[in-house]
């Protein structure tokens, strides 16, 4: 057996805006979509994998997330590691505006990265918790397609939910 160091296999990903990212195989395998592809095509020698639904901005954030979480997992589990992971996740989300968050969810969903997706979904849920109906509609860019009668009826049915809603601060 050769004593030479084995080079870690790298995989190239091309984003929707034609940027190429070279990542270690271990990181690419965090994307279940890609892992499945390689599982089903073990002899595939794809040089570059196109990701037409992911922008470079999203992909670089996602790669960073996966790298960090891989590093956390490589260390021994302990409550202090858990705390560090929680802090990392909080920071990851905190700085991002609502649009970026939604874009990341779409990308994480497409790439099928469960842990990231769960974390992002929780972050969005936290952002719309205790907010008004109008705030939630604005957050997601949704039209009100209730008729006035329907809307009155559904609000009456859920009257209990409207006590103590945060005033909109946007």
């Amino acid at each position, binding site marked *: 057996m050769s004593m030479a160091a084995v080079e870690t296999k790298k995989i190239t990903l091309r984003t929707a805006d034609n940027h190429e990212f070279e990542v270690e195989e271990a990181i690419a395998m965090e994307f279940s979509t890609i892992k499945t592809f390689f599982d089903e095509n073990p002899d595939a020698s794809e040089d570059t994998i196109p990701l037409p639904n992911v922008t470079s901005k999203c992909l670089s954030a996602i790669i960073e997330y996966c790298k960090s979480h891989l590093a956390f997992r490589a260390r021994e589990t302990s409550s202090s590691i858990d705390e560090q992971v929680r802090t990392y996740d909080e920071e990851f989300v905190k700085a991002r505006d609502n649009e970026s968050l939604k*874009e990341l969810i779409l990308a994480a969903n497409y790439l099928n990265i469960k842990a990231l997706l769960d974390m992002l979904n929780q972050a969005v849920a936290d952002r719309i918790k205790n907010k008004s109906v109008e705030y939630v509609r604005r957050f997601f860019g949704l039209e009100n397609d209730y008729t006035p009668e329907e809307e009155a009826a559904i609000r009456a049915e859920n009257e209990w939910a409207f006590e103590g809603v945060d005033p909109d601060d946007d």
Partner: protein
Amino acid sequence: MVQHHHRNRHRQDQETVEENKEKRPKFFINDHVDILVEILKRLDGRSLGVAACVCPLWCTIARNDSLWEDLCFRHVSPPPSSVRSVVVALGGYKRLYMACVRPVLSRLGRVRRASWTRDEVQLSLSLFCVDCYERLGGSNSSNGRLVGELSPSSLMFLCKPVNV
């Protein structure tokens, strides 16, 4: 001169069409119901009630009982097993939440705690059985009582928030 004007207008129309495509949010949540469900699953009860008022699609999804099941036992670890068939038979998880879980939580006061104890879960499930039993009694309207009217001996007063 006229031809030039027409060409400009055509270009403007094309630009408007492209602009409109840009304006439609890239991430339109209602196109991704699986993601929407995952987000709604993580809301508290009140926010779920608000969510039902957002639009008809959200209303339909918010009525899904499995969302309320998540809500009822989210902080219980391990979640009570094999109660689902009983709860569903007695009226479903949304009813459990509204009739029993929510009043118990509000009685516990404003102090928000991260997790439920088994006892709180058991109490809610017991109240839920009482609720169902009394609904059965009401619909038989013995003693000429109107359906839905509670007899003085009803235990459902336990579900009403108390002003202490």
